[in-house]
């Protein structure tokens, strides 16, 4: 029993954090938000050059074969720096799906190698998300159609483009004509793959939300120390302290839920759905509370375009309903814990 990370895992997280701190400062985010596509080609290149897209690709296809447990740390960093979606969708969610495909799928290894090299952006279209992120710049779109897995190029589908409150996100409704040539896995084999993908998507949102919560907390603490009223920093007032203390509690108690869920997913635990839904709800809630208290602590500044808080707040709001609404995840928990003979109680913390 060891519910901690290895020194290697923590050192890697630290290295990614340092890399993103210089490559993706808030000014870079603002530039991204101003562009037509919501992306920065330079950031995309530096991320690929750093090898971040290769992290979960199996070693045989030129990657590092990193698992969900390591990603539960990395997604927090991606959230902390509000790295636009396609990075995590391609390098984590889509790569997990591709790796799970049977070796008989001809395109599998080729696509994985291209992801590892940083030459391919992938959008994942699961019916849990009525709007698909990043179709407009994806090279390949992996689509769920009644449980089947389809590979499509942008040209093979029709899509519109909606802009989001998070200016780095473009969201599309898609339609296409399924055919034998687009299908790579049938519905029977696809069911497990899609459920795992949904869990991985939800977990990636959970990790990012937690990182966003931490970023909003840090910004709010900085502001509360620097902003003075009544002759002292507003952070010396209990009303402000207690709000920020609640943000800390939310983050600290969402973290272990995230790690538990990542472990369950990596192990193929039968209760992975339960743990992932808990993590998703707890982490998104932590981010929403960090946003609510963050804007209050920032006062009128929090309501401006100028304060950096807005970018992280909007990402948190946008991600909340992504990869399953709260109700969806609550229903999954209810289905488990209210079932006859459910493993609920002190003895079942780790599924004894």
């Amino acid at each position, binding site marked *: 029993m060891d*519910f901690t990370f290895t020194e290697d895992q923590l050192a890697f997280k630290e290295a990614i954090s340092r890399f993103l701190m210089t490559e993706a400062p808030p000014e870079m985010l603002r530039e991204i938000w101003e562009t037509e596509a919501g992306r920065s080609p330079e950031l995309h290149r530096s991320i690929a050059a750093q090898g971040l897209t290769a992290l979960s690709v199996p070693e045989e296809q030129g990657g590092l074969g990193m698992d969900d447990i390591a990603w539960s740390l990395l997604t927090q960093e991606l959230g902390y720096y509000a790295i636009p979606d396609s990075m995590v969708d391609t390098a984590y969610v889509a790569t997990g799906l591709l790796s799970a495909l049977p070796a008989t799928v001809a395109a599998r290894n080729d696509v994985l190698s291209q992801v590892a090299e940083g030459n391919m952006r992938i959008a994942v279209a699961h019916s849990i998300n009525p709007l698909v992120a990043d179709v407009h710049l994806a090279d390949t779109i992996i689509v769920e159609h009644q449980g089947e897995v389809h590979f499509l190029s942008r040209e093979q589908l029709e899509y519109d483009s909606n802009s989001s409150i998070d200016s780095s996100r473009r969201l599309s409704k898609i339609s296409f004509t399924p055919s034998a040539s687009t299908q790579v896995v049938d519905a029977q084999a696809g069911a497990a793959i899609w459920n795992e993908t949904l869990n991985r998507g939800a977990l990636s949102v959970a990790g990012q939300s937690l990182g966003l919560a931490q970023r909003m907390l840090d910004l709010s*603490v900085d502001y509360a*120390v620097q902003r003075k009223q009544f002759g002292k920093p507003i952070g010396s007032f209990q009303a402000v*302290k207690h709000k920020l203390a*609640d943000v800390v509690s939310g983050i600290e108690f969402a973290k272990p839920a995230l790690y538990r869920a990542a472990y369950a997913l990596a192990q193929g635990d039968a209760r992975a759905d339960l743990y992932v839904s808990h993590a998703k709800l707890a982490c998104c809630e932590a981010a929403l509370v960090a946003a609510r208290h963050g804007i209050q602590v920032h006062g009128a500044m929090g309501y401006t375009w100028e304060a950096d808080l807005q970018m992280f707040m909007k990402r948190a709001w946008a991600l909340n309903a992504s990869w399953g609404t709260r109700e969806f995840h609550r229903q999954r928990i209810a289905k488990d814990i209210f079932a006859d003979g459910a493993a609920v109680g*002190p*003895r079942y913390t*780790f599924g004894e």
Partner: protein
Amino acid sequence: MQLKFTEKQKAFRQEVQEWLAHNVPKQPLKSYDTREGFEEHRLWEAKLYESRLSMVMWPEHLGGRGCDLIEWLIFEEEYYSAGAPMRVNHNGQLLLGPTLMEFGTEEQKKHFLPRIASSEDMWAQGWSEPDAGSDMAAIRSRATPDGDEFVINGQKTWSTRAIYADWLFGLFRTDPESKRHHGLSYMMVPLNAPGVTVRPIKALNGKEAFAEVFFDDVRIPAFNCIGEVGQGWAVAMATAGFERGLLLRSPARFQSTVKRLVDLYRKYAAEHGENGRLRDAVIDCWMGAEAYAHSAYHTVGLTSKGAKIGAESSINKIIWSELDLKMHEAAMEMLGAYAELQPGSPDVVEDGNWLEGFLFAQAGPIYAGTNEIQRNIIAERMLELPRG
């Protein structure tokens, strides 16, 4: 990360499970807030001690088993799963015991620790005073040095179970000129000493759950001071950390309440149909208790690698005390018109356990340092926000 128990841990769980299955009284003990119930609980503690299960984390020579924190968590999981009696000597076992181990002399340890493990001595706390609550440094009760004795005068209050306990530990001012947290000393006072008066205070549930304690020229030997004279504040702060941290309220306690709450909701839904709001309340409680358990295992893992628990224990205290309230509020709502019925009433549900728990939960955000104080600690020590 590796979330599987070792064979040794599984064997320990099995042993505890079997022992409890054979030994937990079939009839629940009487409330420990009555003299009779208190003594029943003392006997239960003695029984645990005989099997070296009262303080599993203590070393063998003190009657424990030298368990690590993972094994302690396992013990607690089994203890609460078995519905075993509430522990009644937490003050001695979880607060004073570790303090003695860290700050006590060899003679003090030898004398007091085994008697704590066996609950031969039951302990009450003496922190709060009428004018020193959250502001504990405002303590005025005095322990005046006199030869190789101290003479104690003053008043302590909110002392849980003091009317039945044998001893009290707490802070007293040994330097009359001192201010705030200086000049305080950590003392152990026998409650049967001449000059001690214990006056019960009726708690919300009508029981004499806590007391005021008056000291009128009470003489205690210098042997009863823990740590250096005048250094009591530092000693007490260590104890406060133990209390807020994991030990006082193990995750299993809340997981076991959630289990009952889940069952209650199933009954409720069968009778009245699904209710989304109550379903969500129960789910929130389940998540809270699980998160506390996961957080405990995570923290234990970190401490085994050398990390120290500091202000983080304040987060635990807020989480469990507010979770306890939420769980009981949800239960009261599901019980509807039956929620207010007292134990023993003809139509009462689950013998009024939810009501008892609901009343006790009201105290959670207040005792062991109010949640406002805990939030200050988090803000000032973890976030380094300026003191007000």
